């Protein structure tokens, strides 16, 4: 590993972007699934 790696900024941005995307997508999926399940639960109790 002789010289300092030139450039590579786009890879750094990509890494952070992927991290943000994956974590927020998963958090959103939980939120929507939870909301849908709560609505279904309340509808069933209402019946």
């Amino acid at each position: 590993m002789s010289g300092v790696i030139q450039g590579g900024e786009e890879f750094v941005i990509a890494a952070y972007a992927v991290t943000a995307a994956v974590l927020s997508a998963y958090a959103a999926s939980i939120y929507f699934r939870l909301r849908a399940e709560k609505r279904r639960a309340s509808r069933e109790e209402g019946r």
Partner: protein
Amino acid sequence: MSPRSRQWLAPALVVVGAALVCAGSAWGLFKAPPEVFMGEVQRIMYVHVPTAWNAMLALSFAFGCALAFLLTGDWKWDNRLEAALEMGVVLSLLLCMQGAIWAKPTWGVWWDWDPRLTTTAVRVLAVGAIPALRAFGEVPGRRAVWSAVACVIAFADVPIVYFSVKWWNSLHQAQSTPETVSSAFHWPLRINAFGILFLWTGLVALRARLSALRLREETAPPPPAEAAAATPAQGAW
């Protein structure tokens, strides 16, 4: 604290975690000096290493839930197991992506068979198979026991996978991700680590609540006895 008052805790953990990750990332991206050898690419470490720690923590928590369910048979452990497994897979998958993005500028290839990353990839498949097993098991009781057993075995298998890949791969080069990170870079690393920790614990708590809701029929108590009085004891059946 009664469960009712704990409702706000999980979302709060998620928000605090997200904030910490943003702060840590910002620090790592903009304030921290570039590393001597690797220059800019080093900044990926501030998010890669904390993800690695937390992926292992999430799966260890899943292992704990699996053991607790096998020993106590209490449904809340099954809910937490399902949540922790899903979180572990997501974090491990994220780890593989980060590893690939890191390997490209550093080694010129997207995947350099680094023992830890390869083990993570195997772990994603091994642990990811368990939610599939749960999807195909109809009887909730049996599905829960199976996934707990599969989780225990998968967890016991990971170290062996690591050593076998390490030996198998030892011909190329020893270790491609740096073990130690010099002190100047510790702060962003530590902040991100706690950030992701709060984030995934909050998400697991919410995801467990979802599992509990889905199982409410299976764990609801039986209908009250007085309905029995409705049918005359000596009447016809």
